[in-house]
């Protein structure tokens, strides 16, 4: 955890006796109204890696393929290869240490819940929240199939077996360690005069590299 976050926690603990949470009952302002169960259910579309929020439903790889061709392939390509500059969804296995890594669902995404959660809330692009839960199960199954995580085309993904799937890159994430791994950036007393033994050399220039890139080599901000 970050230094400033730790500081914040210390401050919170120190103030615990006075904190709004500790004395919540006495400090309520009576603003807002109680949300109804129906309102919460309609908006609560998130799905977490532990299965929290996973709705009832089911869908097969084959059903997902039909949906994918109809609603997704136009941007993402027939095989998840990504048309134009739309995101690549499949492939890239073993590419994460390469100069041009392909960070796809299969090669990079650590949790299948993220696939479900994202499709459900944001896809298809321009027609968000239009898919049924069964359709999202089917599309998730198909994307996992495109990435060879689900091999059987007859496989049905559902609420019960959802958590049995393990994503290949699941264990490759670790919490921010900049304050230890990059400790040398703190407390340095940088040189101010006669700092270089040799004159600085220009290593790269925007005017040379600043070419309109093709689809594969262009930098991305997404």
């Amino acid at each position, binding site marked *: 955890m*970050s*230094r*400033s*976050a730790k500081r*914040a926690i210390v*401050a*919170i603990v120190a103030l615990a006796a006075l*904190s*709004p*949470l500790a004395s919540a009952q006495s*400090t*309520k302002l009576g*603003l*807002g109204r*109680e*949300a109804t169960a129906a*309102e*919460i259910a309609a908006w*609560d*579309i*998130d799905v977490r890696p532990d299965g*929290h929020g996973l709705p009832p439903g089911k869908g097969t790889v084959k059903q997902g393929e039909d949906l994918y061709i109809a609603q997704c392939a136009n*941007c993402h390509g027939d095989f998840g290869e990504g048309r*134009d500059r739309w*995101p690549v969804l499949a492939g890239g296995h073993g590419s994460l*240490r390469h*100069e041009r890594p392909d960070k796809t669902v299969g090669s*990079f*995404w650590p949790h299948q819940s*993220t696939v479900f*959660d994202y499709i459900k809330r*944001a896809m298809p*692009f*321009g027609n*968000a929240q239009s898919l049924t839960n069964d359709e999202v199960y089917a599309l998730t199954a198909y994307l996992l199939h495109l990435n060879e995580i689900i091999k059987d085309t007859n496989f049905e993904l559902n609420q019960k077996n959802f958590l049995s799937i393990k994503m290949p890159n699941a264990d490759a*994430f*670790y*919490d921010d*360690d900049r304050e230890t791994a*990059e400790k040398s*950036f*703190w*407390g340095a007393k940088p040189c*101010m005069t*006669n*700092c270089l033994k040799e004159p*600085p*050399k220009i*290593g*790269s*220039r*925007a*005017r040379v*590299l*600043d*070419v*309109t890139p093709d689809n594969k080599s262009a930098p*991305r*901000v*997404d």
Partner: protein
Amino acid sequence: MTTDTNRRRFLTSALAGSAAIASGEAALAQDKAKGAAATVIKSNPKNLPPNVPIWSKVLGDSVAAHPYGKPSKFEKHVVRRDVEWLTASRESSVNFTPLHELDGIITPNGLCFERHHGGAAEINPLDHRLLVHGLVDKPLMFTMDDLKRFPRTNRVHFLECAANSGMEWRGAQLNGCQFTHGMVHNVMYTGVLLKDILAEAGVKPTAKWLQVEGADSAAMNRSLPIEKALADAMLAFKMNGEALRTEQGYPLRLVVPGWEGNLWVKWIRRIEVGDQPWLAREETSKYTDLMSDGRSRRYTFIMDAKSVVTNPSPEAPLRHKGRNVLSGLAWSGRGKISRVDVTLDGGRNWREARIDGLVLDRSLTRFYIDVDWTGQEMMIQSRAHDETGYVQPTKDELRKIRGANNIYHNNGIQTWLVRANGETENVEIG
């Protein structure tokens, strides 16, 4: 030379520069050319001394002419710009703040860079609701009017996209300060503290994380640690005194001081309190930092200290020998800026810049170097220090630890090469 002639000379040279550069640069060049071509302004000798200029003779516009004021027509080139080839669609895309045209520390509302994942939602504030639910005593639904009845606070903070300078990890690529550093802005927010809203719902002791979610067509969702939510996060409804701009999350956005811009959910409609993170798309597939060993850092929320010289820069070349004002911005997600060093000779010798104006916690900070330029080639860099003792690293120092596939959190030192004719280019030295 007069200001107007200078402007014309500058704009003409910008045009010539665009035409001259390699055809491969077509996209950016066209963009630059379009921007410049639209704004070629000529000086009129009849308005120059000793003549009496036209504006001294005739009446100007009435007070009814501009119910909502706009910048002078001579400032039309000061706009956000995007790079069309950068993203697949312009709805899920980004544009950039024209840092080289601004001064002081506050970004005008209409020039704050935009980053949307499903376009800028247009929301009637009467129909906007904020839902707080999950691990709370009582789930609550708030109207905008409800939120404006909580105790109000004002804070100035920078918002920087984690991908700012992300195109530059492998070396100098984009020839313009607007494009290399323009995914940052700094405004005064008015709003309410998130801790007060959470207290109203009553957060259960098992709460550790919040999911914050937008009402846009991306339903942008991120996980926010409860400590940060209680420490200083805000729900803002005003920026620089007026209502949030549509593209900045009108009518309500989250403010997460010092942390990466993606967490500052716009059009925020829902806060779910939970006991673990959601690991949504924008905190796994995106906004995680791929290291050279193939593993990835996650939860890299804080934006480390960074700075850039905004003038001169490729879009703002030096135009005079003799006295010049070099200017730049520094900021840190960990606190206040304590010092900025500047070198003009590629790092051989450094001097402390003059910091001017307000120095605020996790805010852009303005610095100047007053220079007598004899026309020698310069390699200009700036290096920020913050109050935690962090010193802005070089790009080589960052790559040594992280590799070049990080995309995010590139806070390395920027180099501008200024040639004898004042033209300025984005380069990397080593």
